[in-house]
């Protein structure tokens, strides 16, 4: 069975610093998708970035980038020049099949002014 593990329950950094959130997963599949979602206090899940396993190039979206290590089954999220608005819960998710997302427990990220 696929599982997703986020080993950091909470992290805190100063504004403008760079922070990396870790995620590991377990699967026997060869082709799959991985996602990072952000959940601010408003509760709404917002897609941050997605990665397709068959693509070796790491996905990047502005200040957000991933370090995808397929052999190690690792999918970390790097946030550069962190901003106060980045404060949120961050969830890593694995797509099983075409639509079923398997989620990690989340990392609470606090950006301090």
């Amino acid at each position, binding site marked *: 069975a696929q599982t997703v593990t986020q080993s950091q329950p909470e992290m805190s950094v100063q504004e403008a610093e760079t922070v990396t959130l870790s995620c590991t997963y377990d699967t026997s599949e060869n082709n799959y998708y991985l996602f990072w979602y952000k959940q601010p206090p408003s*509760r*709404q*899940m917002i897609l941050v970035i997605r990665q397709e396993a068959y693509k070796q190039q790491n996905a990047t979206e502005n200040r957000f980038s991933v370090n995808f290590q397929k052999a190690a089954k690792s999918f970390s999220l790097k946030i550069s020049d962190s901003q106060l608005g980045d404060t949120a819960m961050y*969830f890593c998710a694995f*797509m099983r099949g075409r*639509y079923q997302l398997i*989620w990690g427990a*989340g990392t609470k990220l606090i950006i301090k002014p």
Partner: protein
Amino acid sequence: GAGVSQSPSNKVTEKGKDVELRCDPISGHTALYWYRQSLGQGLEFLIYFQGNSAPDKSGLPSDRFSAERTGGSVSTLTIQRTQQEDSAVYLCASSLGRGGTETQYFGPGTRLLVL
């Protein structure tokens, strides 16, 4: 355009009562998903609707949980004879439903508290 909306935003009920949670997907999205998020945990898949196809109910935790989708748009998640362990945030998401792996867009959720 409008995103996924859910109602009510918060719901407090007594143990044993039935509750209905509503989800309005993004216009034009044919795929709809329900998830449950318990305190301090990630999301748990409940059910998936795609167009007129039979829904994937494999994530529903018990027969007290059911969901329907009328007219291929609005969906209602019903929990009968609620228990305290049903307390959680219930999130709905939708996607285009055109096949392949699609990004799911989420609503703000309904926070359910069973006393």
